[in-house]
């Protein structure tokens, strides 16, 4: 999605509309509440607070989902989240290098050393598997079908 394709004015307008819709639903819910009405009219109509609240929730859920999903798909959000990831990567690299240097100076094996040993073991395992295959092929050149 190009920067030109994303209309921020339209998006902020949608954001306002979602807020307005949710608030009017809340107001509507409150107005229907018999406690908020005068006592003479109260009790003459069915009022289900749970159903009313559910309606409010559904309005909020629908409008908020639309707005937020549109927002996370905006180039501005993508650029900002990318910047945050970039900065956290820089910090992590700096921190890891400092730890690695300290451990090396203290003559301790580092995480990098352990990873290298484990990677070598994995390579050895792959070579053993290749050898086992060769032995298998040598012993059973034409393996009969299981079917």
């Amino acid at each position: 999605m190009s920067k030109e394709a994303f209309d921020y004015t339209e998006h902020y307008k949608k954001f306002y509309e979602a807020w307005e819709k949710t608030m009017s639903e809340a107001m509507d819910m409150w107005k229907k509440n018999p406690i908020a009405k005068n006592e003479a009219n109260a009790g003459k109509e069915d009022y289900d607070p749970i159903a009313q609240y559910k309606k409010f929730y559904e309005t909020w859920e629908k409008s908020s989902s639309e707005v937020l999903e549109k927002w996370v798909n905006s180039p501005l959000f993508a650029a900002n989240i990318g910047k945050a990831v970039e900065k956290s990567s820089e910090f992590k690299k700096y921190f890891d290098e400092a730890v690695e240097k300290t451990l090396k100076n203290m003559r301790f094996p580092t995480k990098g050393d352990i990873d290298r040993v484990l990677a070598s073991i994995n390579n050895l395992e792959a070579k053993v598997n290749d050898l086992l295959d060769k032995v298998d092929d040598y012993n059973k050149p034409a393996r009969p079908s299981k079917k």
Partner: protein
Amino acid sequence: MGNKYVDSAMQEAGKARDKFSKALEIALLNPPEVEVGVTPHEVIFTENKLRLLHYYPLAEKTHPVPLIMIFALVNRPYILDLKPGRSVVEVLLKKGIDVYLIDWGSPGDEDKKLDLNHYINRYIKQVVKQVKKHSGSDKVSVLGYCMGGTMSAMYTALYPEDIRNLLLMTAGIDYKVEGTLSLWGDKPNFDVDKFIDAYGNVPAEFLQSGFIFMKPIQNLVSKYVNFYENVDNEAFVENFLAMEKWLNDNIPVPGEVFREFVKYLYQENQLVENKLKINGKRVDLKEIKCPVLNLIAENDHLVPPASSLGFTEMTSSKDTKTIVYPTGHIGLSVSSKSLKALWPEVADWLIERSK
């Protein structure tokens, strides 16, 4: 007079509080242990963290060409065998298909250098070899899911002689189509080199939060409200817990293969532009001549349908079929609708081409 309403509201609030405590306890605080991936199987090959699973037949007659399921490198593959009655593996076995599945395992920091070359030319090649040997068949069918689908297409293009049928499920092929991940992974927004150089592997939490942020209200609110409303429905709770277990069972992705996926595919779209080379060999989709079945989820927010829609035309296959199914990325493998209607159809398509 307002008391009548206050009393009724208080009663409702009391009931809601009890229901809420129950939901909170089950969903978040103390979720019961759920068994997943229980269809009987044996492990016939291992290398590093990779395990190759072979499922025991559930039908009297098994068709001669085995099927290898290749899952994505993100999350665990048991989504394809979630629980009895909600398992793609089970549906295929009951239809007489000989099913193998690659479980990539959870990569450690020592695996950060594993790249596309290693996955395609070592792991998948080894698996195909082992399955051929184990089944006695000289060809195999592959079913790739998501990233696993992209890798299956690459493997089939590089080793067409091994593959009898290629089945893709929500596989990203064309990465220049509009989508959230394409936008987030785009070059100006994401410096993948800096990220991988610092982190080594992609942390599981990084991917998980990315997926959550794609649909924040649905993942952080609606899902739990829906659970609260259905907390007394035993079958619903059981499915919810199994799905939650899978969704939260995240694994890291080896850094190098992630770097290549982002750079070569998301940012440069090399597969579609016929520029992708693995170990010096071009991955030409036109080399795919076997029958192809392309399964697309209509409401997929991870891999937009348009990303895989044109795949069959990019191959040279004369026997292709594309099914766009009205479900989401995960729904394709776990929704009861897919399991009842789609997968038996997939099995029939495969059986027809496995004689």
